[in-house]
């Protein structure tokens, strides 16, 4: 079974990567399995300076999902280059750097610094958990276009834009990214949510709101990828609630070329490896002979062969 896939900047042996922010810089999970088994690693967001992030509690449990408001805590781009990337390089796994910022200048500066050391950039214009920067770029096509254009100009490697689902029209955002020179899309970041504790009468998350992730959001992500696949000719890294090889196949069929697994790493730290192990059999069971073949499958299928009706 051929699991490999070629994407801008990433020639990966399978389409499975841990999602940004759910895997730190890989050290912790390297206790669980050999990181070289992964298609690639998407690192935790990098900002120019180190950030402490939001107050705690930073996570809350929801039905089939969770809220988080970490607030982009990270040691800053220089420390990531110095202290984190060498470890991943040594493991021999392709690296994607998730880049965040408060201003266009910060995005540009971080990309300029980090892009020579990684295989691709994931431009995070969609983090709902920081007060300034981040999400406003991700909800206005014009602002998005501006930051993407400038980042693409300075980047040494292809730039994937990570889209926010908190928008009326995801296609409009995807088109803006495409026109601004993005090489690919990452879909989706978290949906803004809140949980209130009736005991304290306050939001559970210190920040008030947090980003909703996990199985709960999968139908929204699948819908958005399905829409964007039809409208924009860019490869998509799909994510949101992936927990099994079947879920991966659903993403591929919707139009993703590769996927990232986020919160499920917390449920089961071995999940990425397990999904990789199960993927060949799953593809086979549903009649596919490669990952490539499944991509966008639902768009090519003729209607009318519905199981219930046959």
């Amino acid at each position, binding site marked *: 079974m051929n699991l490999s896939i070629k994407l801008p900047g990433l020639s990966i042996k399978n389409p499975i990567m841990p999602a940004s922010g759910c895997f730190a810089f890989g050290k912790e999970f390297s206790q669980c399995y050999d990181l070289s088994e992964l298609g690639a690693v998407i690192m935790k967001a990098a900002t120019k300076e180190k950030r402490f992030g939001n107050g705690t509690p930073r996570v809350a449990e929801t039905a089939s999902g969770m809220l988080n408001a970490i607030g982009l805590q990270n040691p800053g781009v220089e420390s990531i280059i110095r202290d984190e990337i060498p470890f991943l390089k040594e493991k021999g796994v392709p690296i994607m750097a998730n880049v965040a910022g408060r201003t266009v200048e910060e995005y540009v500066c971080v990309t300029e610094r980090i892009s020579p050391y990684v295989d691709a950039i994931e431009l995070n214009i969609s983090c709902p958990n920081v007060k300034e920067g981040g999400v406003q770029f991700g909800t206005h096509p014009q602002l998005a276009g501006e930051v993407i254009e400038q980042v693409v100009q300075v980047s040494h490697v292809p730039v994937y834009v990570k889209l926010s689902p908190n928008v009326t029209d995801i296609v409009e955002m995807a088109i803006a990214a495409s026109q601004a020179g993005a090489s690919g899309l990452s879909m989706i970041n978290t949906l803004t949510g809140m949980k209130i504790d009736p005991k304290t009468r306050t939001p559970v998350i210190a920040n008030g709101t947090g980003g909703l992730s996990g199985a709960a959001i999968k139908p929204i992500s699948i819908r958005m990828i399905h829409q964007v696949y039809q409208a924009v000719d860019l490869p998509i890294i799909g994510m949101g609630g992936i927990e099994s090889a079947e879920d991966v196949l659903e993403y591929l069929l919707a139009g993703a070329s590769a996927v990232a697994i986020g919160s499920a790493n917390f*449920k089961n*730290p071995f999940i990425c490896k397990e999904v990789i192990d199960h993927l060949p059999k799953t593809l086979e069971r549903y009649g596919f002979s490669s990952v490539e073949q499944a991509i966008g499958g639902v768009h090519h299928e003729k209607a009318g062969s519905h199981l219930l009706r046959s």
Partner: protein
Amino acid sequence: MINELMSILSHEPLAEDTYRLVLHGKMVHEIKEPGQFVHIRMDGFYLRRPVSISDYDPLNETITLIYKVMGDGTEALTKQNHSLEVLGPLGQGFPIDQIHANHALLIGGGVGVPPLYSLAKQLRRKGVSVTSILGFRSKEEAFLLEDFEALGDVHITTENGTLGRCGRVTDVLSEMAGNCDMYFTCGPTAMLKAVANDLPDTPGFLSMEERMGCGIGACFACVVPSKDEKGYKRICCDGPVFRAEEVVL
């Protein structure tokens, strides 16, 4: 660290809303020190639940947890009788091998008491005298009293006065402090703070709690500000046990 389907050897009420759970499995062989914890997964809950290892026995391959019902997850836990998916052992516990003390003071509040039990036993094994101050809400919620009494002096406080001194652990702290040359405490953050403030000159260790995502250091959910250059510690992997002077409460 392993993820193990551990079998449940026994699971019984210990006090009001409080249960003792004895698990059997290979994980016990990886425990380094008292104060480490496990991360429990249950069907229908998206996040795991962190629970301290209260006692462990490599010979019989058992791990004992003591937990209190606080919400839906621990409520559901009470119904488990067959096996449990457990990730562990996690975190840094009390560095028992490096501890040099003559007389240790242990201060536990509510479900902060369990991890101190295995610590107390190991301190005694090293020849350290142990005095314990255990605080509970009421007599009905108190547990492990005899177990601690077998290891040294025990002072009980209850918030409603139904057992021991009426009040909080800090109310008896000052009376005990003089005798000890090191303290160990686990409980709500407010209590840890009060204890650390009351014993500024005694070396001490705090075991902390925070809501967790991964439990292994990868998500930054569980940070506490620290006094070092990095500025933070992750409770799940740098802790849950810290030297009192390391963290900012």
